[in-house]
């Protein structure tokens, strides 16, 4: 009888171990790799492009070191927001345990273009020719959305006055 109970408990323990082993094997991907199929909008600097969702090292490789970096923490210690300021753009990077990714790009003059060649000062027609019909157009802003990525053009007198690329998840 005792032998049978011992055998049952042994079997049970092995079952628990097997379950735990299986669980460990099915770990979630926490490496921050981006499995997104949405098209990430990007910009071109010195003939090279980088996009929303790229790592900060891609930014620095292409655009060089920024003029300044402003930092802001987060409640609950869930990462740091860093704003990289260049003469022609501002780039927001979210740094956390999954890595450092570009979440926001704002162009401040016509020296940098979008990855389809649109720069501040271009016409609204240039934008729609390059990107097609926008998802929204309220007269002063036109926006293109691709999943979590967005591209926003400010328009005044039919000309592009601002260009902002935003990753909408926070």
């Amino acid at each position: 009888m005792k032998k049978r109970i011992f055998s049952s408990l042994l079997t049970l323990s092995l079952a628990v171990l097997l379950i735990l082993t299986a669980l460990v094997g099915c770990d979630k991907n926490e490496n921050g790799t981006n499995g997104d199929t949405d098209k990430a909008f990007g910009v071109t600097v010195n003939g090279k492009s980088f996009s929303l969702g790229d790592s900060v090292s891609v930014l620095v490789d292409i655009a060089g070191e920024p003029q300044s970096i402003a930092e802001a923490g987060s409640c609950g210690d869930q990462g740091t927001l860093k704003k990289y300021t260049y003469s022609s753009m501002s780039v927001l990077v979210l740094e956390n345990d999954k890595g450092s990714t570009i979440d926001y790009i704002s162009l401040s003059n016509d020296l940098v273009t979008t990855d389809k060649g649109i720069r501040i000062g271009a016409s609204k027609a240039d934008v729609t020719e390059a990107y097609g019909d926008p998802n929204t157009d309220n007269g002063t802003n036109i926006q293109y959305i691709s999943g979590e990525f967005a591209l926003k053009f400010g328009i005044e007198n039919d000309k592009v006055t601002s260009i902002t690329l935003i990753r909408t998840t926070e």
Partner: protein
Amino acid sequence: MKKRIIALVASILILTLCIILLGQLTRPKYTDNAEGALIGEYYDNAGDNDLIFVGDCEVYESFVPAMLWGRYGISSYIRGSAQQLPWQSYYILEETFEYETPKAVVFNVYSLKYGTPQNEAYNRMTLDGMKWSSLKTDAIKASMTDEESFIEYVIPLLRFHSRISELNRDDFKYMFSSPEVSHNGYLMQTGVVPMNESDSMEPLELLDYMLPERAMQYLDKMRELCEENGSELILVKAPTNSWAYWWYDEWNIQIEEYAETYDLAYYNFIPEVDEIGIDMSTDTYDGGLHLNVHGAEKLTEYFGRILTEKHGFDSKKGIDPELDKAWNERVEKYYDDKKGE
């Protein structure tokens, strides 16, 4: 046959016990990240609170219940948590009404910028501390991101099993109970990191300046819940405003209009910073994102006066000796901790 059934039942019980114990062992204890422990601390302090705060970090870093009692005789508790989303505030508030009916509820409006589930880590900091009930179930369902699953909240081991290889002493020490980290929901921060010029620079541009419909629906639900329970809903915006967590004028106008429509009080403390006496070179611990204890005390002093002058709060001191005793102990502990940090 009977023995086999007994053995089977015993096996199932042992397996269940193993899963529960391992779940308790592997779940995060938040000993190095106190924000995750706040929600669970309420239950030992529920009842007798005339004022309940709900909302994100801007409530648990901006208002000091020990001081509201000490200066004004107002008993209060802060049910705040890191990035507490509007639907989480709603379910936490609904749960609170099952324990007590405060005279007023204060909700910090910053989280109304969020219209969708955001981040599992923040969800966990709010939801794991709630006691199991249909409200917690609803809160989880409303909060989960695409990557999360409900069963992982029910059986923590499924989510946290990978921590088995990184367990530390605290995981064993606090397997069943955690150390108290707050003062009635207020999380004390005594450090000073001044706000500098770059912290106050221009905010980021948004795609859409309308507060999300889903967030406003949950504000409606909180308002209706307060009405049903006879509690006044007071809206506030903490005085902090930095480029990374900006309170846009467009949002402020929407809240002002909402408050006017439903005859609610709304206090945006951002333009009141000077009047409150807050100095962002000394009263913040993280460059202006949150107030430290010095800034929180100034704001609490200011807000306590508003509560007594405009919202009919009378001092409850000297009425119930038990209440006096409990609060005197809390106030003493608060000042001891402030001195000791």
